[in-house]
């Protein structure tokens, strides 16, 4: 205990608090690696949150709920893909539209689901492992989604680094004209990357409504999608650093909540600003140090691809 804050509880809470942004940021990383900037993460997340919640409540199964969240996120991402890849619309504007649309659509679907509790997501049983002091509660006391999110980050890292398909995806993101000339299907690769990004954002949203909160309220993502976008920049487009960024952010969120609970004389609303202010600060520090280094962003990020031009 330091200043009314229990460190073990804090670190354990950090892992759960980070999971939604970790999932969303990993998905966005893959989309951006393929050269597409999708600013609609917030919209996909919140649609995933409502779809996951609705599916879990109606079927009684959290597993189906997470699946539903992922499918909803991927569908919304496909809409983005049609607009930006086939109709060549501006990616920044389309991403914003996706967020506004997702917020509206989720509010519409969520009307009948307010004030309900979702079916509980099971915690994994590690038996005696969870009895270990300090490490037990930190590492072995979570629901299965926390571990799945870590597996997904590791899989993404390995895919981008070692798989042939991952190499093609990166090539498309670095130079789409060259990739096209080599015979790779730029549009198809980007469609797939966007759908994957949407599915993970939806999964992150579903984790918010099914585990973190757990209930459905309008606008419940409260900027988590935008923070996921910031984390991708923070991570310099590297999956392993996405994990660091997401856990850092989760740590601040968890700490801020514990400070509120510990009853410090800081107004609640000023504490609630902390995650956003710190995200800005981290972005600043990062861009300041990267100023003279090699730019880490995929070279074709945000540029439309048209084969005959």
């Amino acid at each position, binding site marked *: 205990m330091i200043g009314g804050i229990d460190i073990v509880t804090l670190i354990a809470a950090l892992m759960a608090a980070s999971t939604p942004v970790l999932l969303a940021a990993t998905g966005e990383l893959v989309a951006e690696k393929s050269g597409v900037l999708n600013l609609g993460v917030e919209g996909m997340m919140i649609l995933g949150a409502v779809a996951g919640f609705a599916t879990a409540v109606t079927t009684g199964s959290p597993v189906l709920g997470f699946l539903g969240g992922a499918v909803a996120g991927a569908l919304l991402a496909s809409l983005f893909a049609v607009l930006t890849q086939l109709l060549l*619309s501006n990616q920044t504007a389309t991403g914003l*539209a996706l967020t*506004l649309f997702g917020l509206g659509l989720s509010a519409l679907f969520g009307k009948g689901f307010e004030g309900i509790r979702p079916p509980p997501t099971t915690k994994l049983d590690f038996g005696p492992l969870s009895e270990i002091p300090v490490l037990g509660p930190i590492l072995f006391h979570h629901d299965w989604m926390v571990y799945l999110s870590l597996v997904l980050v590791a899989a993404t890292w390995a895919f981008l680094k070692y798989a042939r398909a991952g190499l093609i995806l990166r090539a498309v993101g670095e130079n789409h004209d060259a990739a096209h000339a080599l015979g790779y299907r730029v549009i198809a690769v980007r469609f797939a990357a966007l759908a994957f990004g949407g599915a993970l954002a939806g999964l992150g949203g579903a984790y918010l409504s099914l585990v973190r909160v757990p209930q459905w309220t309008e606008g419940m993502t409260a900027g988590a999608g935008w923070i996921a976008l910031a984390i991708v*920049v923070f991570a310099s487009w590297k999956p392993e650093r996405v994990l660091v960024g997401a856990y850092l952010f989760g740590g601040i969120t968890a700490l801020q909540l514990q400070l509120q609970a510990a009853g410090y004389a800081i*107004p609640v609303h000023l504490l609630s600003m902390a995650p*956003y202010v710190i*995200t800005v600060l981290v*972005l600043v520090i990062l861009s300041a140090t*990267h100023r003279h280094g090699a730019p880490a962003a995929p070279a074709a990020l945000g540029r439309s691809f048209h084969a*005959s031009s």
Partner: protein
Amino acid sequence: MITLVKRPTPSQFWAYATPVLAVLATMVAGGILFAALGKDPIAAIKVIFYDPLFGPNAAYFRGQLLVKAGPLILIAAGLAVGFRAGIWNIGAEGQYIMGALAGASVALAAYPAESHWLFPAMVVAGALGGWLWGMIPALLKTAFGTSEILVSLMLVYVAQNFLAYAAFGPLKNPEGYGFPGSRNLQQYPSAHNPELIAGTGMHWGVVAALMAVIATYILMQRHIAGYRIRVAGEAPRAARFAGVVPAKLVMFCLGLSGAFAGLAGLFEVAGPNGQITDSFNAGYGFTAIIVAFLGRLNAIGILLAGLLMALTYIGGDMAQLMLGLPTAAIQVFQGMLLFFLLGFDLLTQYRLRLGRARA
């Protein structure tokens, strides 16, 4: 097989036709959405688009039109200047809140003194509040190269929490029986932004919106600075050779749009809304982004787009009352409009051709 052939220059015809086409497509898609919600689509579209203007209680609703359109047009006029230059201020909602807070603070500090100077001072404070909030992403971008998109957006959430803090703390009405929220500025004559002509909904914010439209029109179409802004957006490299300093441009665009959004917030808190509460902001800062695009980032276009978007707000309220249509349906409707607009924009840049393209 349909192929796309890039036009040598963007089509003038389609530049004007796509917004109209997008509105029509949204009506069709919206109709399908309303039908899916179990409402009569024709009736819903009529309630949203026709009744507020020509229906039985149209006199009242026409006034509401200006009340809603004023802030949308004012914010969008500022945003469009930046969007033209490729500077993405998407945190207008935050600048709107900070403008309202700054302006209301001036009024509440002076309470209950009456003076003709109070309202002008509030206007200056409101513009300054929004300007300062817009300068944060601008300075961070010029000094460190930080993305203005992410910073301005993050600052919306900071502003929102700051608003709640002010409504529950320093700006709380001491005579409010413990309820959160400030004094009502509508009951403070020197600070009130009243309806100028009874029944029209015209208040100083609407006047400011019209002035902003004229000012940005002149800036963008008739002034060298506007030309530079457009070049910077369309050909950044060429702009640098032409002597455009990117840092100055970033500060100008974010400062201008921030000040406009701040003004919109001030006029709203001193007029139609009246009070600082934790739910004071109604999303105008985000809807203004749609307005800016629907108006094709052009001042006159934004004027029309703002009125149309205001109509969907009022029509949406009516549809909620008369048909039980959820409020969120209108948000979806507005989102669809932006999608169709961005999708149809293809037609201004490309020609559709059946069969394979010849090189």
